[in-house]
């Protein structure tokens, strides 16, 4: 009997018992779908997250402080800084020129008199002196800034502000109800020292900004986040005062710090060393990244193991279904032998039958799994977009899809081997037996 004839006979055999075939295919389908979805998600997590880590991103960034390094702590993730040291454009230029540096994002900071709006029960919150952090919000995806509620201020806007949970608690709102501060207006005053005929006079530059979002941020110390433009304008007002208004605690360093993105995760230690040699203190979550990588690997292994267990269960299902089919069709097998079928003909038919079930289940299941991964990707992307981060594109993992289909087919063939052998070894006299 040719392979083609065996295939026709096997397919007709499958179609003869549609209920059992559908259930068996369903088992393979679910297992393949689960494995494909898990592997697609975990592979994407590894490649996209680690790619982001290795090609530059929030976790691959190096925070540069406007301070000299403490020689005793240069290798720590978050070292104590040394003496304050101005970080100006020239210093940023030197850092930008270092080998392995992909991007340098300056971080500004200005201390201002903050007047929050009336809180719950129309109770006015005590004004306070707070730090306003300013960054180029076009690069927020590269900065350690996480959106908790609302949205980020528009890049370049001077009337929008995002606040941290520190501010939220200060105005008497619990972090779980942080969205209550959205839409409120905060008044900010930058103070300038003026000489009024021999008398020192402090003149404030008052601005109003609407709270549009609540963020968690680690770019610099501060409870408010605004565009770099808004902070620069406040800094310029303060600096235009007598003696740069230093008596009021105005900034001495043009930049509060900088965020340096290295070309690759492996370049981070070297870039940190070189920035230290330029004379500034740095911090970077090197050990954290190593831990994240290890955890991602573990997650990947666990997810793959879950999927493989599902596939093995599906394989047992195929084996069981095929054994049941052999039991039911003993006389039919006997008849086939009576009319001349060799052992290998019977073996071939049953093996093809198992392979067909595995192939169909694997084919449909793999694409269903990919669809599930895509659906999960949509949800994840919605979250990432809300965070101002770049979304994740799953793409079509062709090797994974081909591997899924081939794997399910091979598994079915392995699971079908024993039933096929059993069928092949049945004696021809089954044709005339009582069954």
């Amino acid at each position, binding site marked *: 009997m040719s392979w083609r004839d065996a295939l026709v006979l096997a397919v007709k055999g499958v179609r003869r018992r549609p209920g059992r075939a559908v259930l068996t295919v369903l088992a393979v389908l679910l297992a393949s779908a689960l494995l494909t979805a898990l592997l697609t998600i975990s592979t994407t997590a590894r490649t996209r997250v680690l790619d982001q880590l290795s090609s530059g991103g929030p976790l691959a960034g190096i925070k540069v402080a406007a301070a000299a390094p403490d020689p005793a702590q240069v290798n720590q993730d978050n070292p104590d800084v040394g003496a304050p040291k101005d970080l100006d454009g020239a210093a940023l230029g030197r850092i930008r020129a270092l080998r392995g540096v992909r991007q340098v994002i300056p971080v500004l900071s200005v201390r201002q008199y903050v007047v929050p709006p009336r809180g719950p029960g129309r109770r006015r919150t005590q004004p306070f002196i707070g730090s306003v952090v300013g960054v180029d919000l076009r690069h927020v995806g590269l900065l350690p800034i996480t959106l908790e509620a609302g949205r980020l201020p528009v890049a370049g806007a001077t009337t929008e502000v995002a606040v941290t949970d520190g501010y939220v608690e200060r105005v008497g709102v619990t972090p779980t109800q942080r969205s209550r501060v959205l839409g409120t207006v905060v008044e900010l005053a930058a103070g300038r020292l003026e000489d009024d005929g021999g008398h020192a006079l402090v003149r404030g530059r008052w601005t109003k900004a609407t709270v549009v979002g609540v963020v968690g941020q680690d770019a610099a110390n501060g409870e408010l986040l605004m565009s770099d433009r808004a902070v620069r304008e406040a800094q310029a007002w303060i600096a235009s005062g007598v003696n740069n208004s230093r008596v009021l605690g105005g900034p001495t360093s043009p930049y509060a710090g900088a965020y340096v993105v290295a070309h690759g995760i492996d370049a981070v230690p070297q870039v940190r060393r070189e920035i230290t040699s330029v004379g500034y203190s740095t911090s970077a979550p090197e050990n954290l990244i190593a831990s994240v990588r290890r955890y991602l690997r573990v997650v990947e292994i666990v997810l793959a193991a879950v999927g493989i267990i599902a596939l093995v269960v599906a394989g047992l299902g195929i084996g069981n279904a095929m054994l049941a089919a052999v039991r039911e069709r003993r006389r*039919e097998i006997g008849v086939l032998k009576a009319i001349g079928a060799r052992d290998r003909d019977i073996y071939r038919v049953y093996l093809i039958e198992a392979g067909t079930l595995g192939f169909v289940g694997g084919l449909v299941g793999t694409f269903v799994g990919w669809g599930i991964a895509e659906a999960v990707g949509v949800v994840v992307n919605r979250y990432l977009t809300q965070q101002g981060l770049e979304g994740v594109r799953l793409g079509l993992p062709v090797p994974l899809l081909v591997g899924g289909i081939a794997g399910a087919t091979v598994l079915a063939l392995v699971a079908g081997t024993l039933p096929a052998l059993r069928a092949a070894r049945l004696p021809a*006299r089954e044709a005339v037996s009582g069954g």
Partner: protein
Amino acid sequence: MVGLRHRFESRAGDVTVLDGVDLHLDAGDHAALVGASGVGKTTLLSVLGGLESPQEGTVRVDDHDLAGMSRGELATFRRETVGFVFQHFGLLEALTAAENVELAGSLAGAAAGPRRRRAAELLEAVGLVDRARHRPLELSGGERQRLAIARALMNRPRLVLADEPTGNLDERSSTLVMGLLESLPAGHGCTLVVVTHDATIAARARRCFRLSGGRAIEEAIPV
């Protein structure tokens, strides 16, 4: 067939069903095997047709000595030399009538074209040409048995073995089926052995053997 012995082993004890059967048939013979239930008619047929190897004794069909054959050789013997007709028809429900007939050719390695033509000829011969695309469950009992006869003839066997071929048929269908079977020795030049309980069918054979006490005794056919 000389000194054929066959026994079934079981935990309750061995049962000897054939105990020195001697039987000689000439090419083109039409023989009936009769006897009470359980005397070994079907076992004798199985050994004769190569469904199982003889445990003891000699069984020769043409030039084939079945006693020394391997599983593969027995399969080849069944495919090339024997045609079976079963009481339960033994048709594959998933295949059409034409495909059931062709299947025997497929197992013999016949090319698609010739075996399709041969199947059409045989379906015509058994009066089922217009049911070629029907599945066995869509045919009557008589039609199924005629289909089984067509399949048995697919590879031009030298020996046709029929095990209670009319056991599941009504009288009219039985007559039709037996007419077909009885025409085989003359029409196709093959030897026909029919296991039956039906004395009328046995009486229409050229030779009749009664199995009793593990042995085959030839009986005279009443004229």
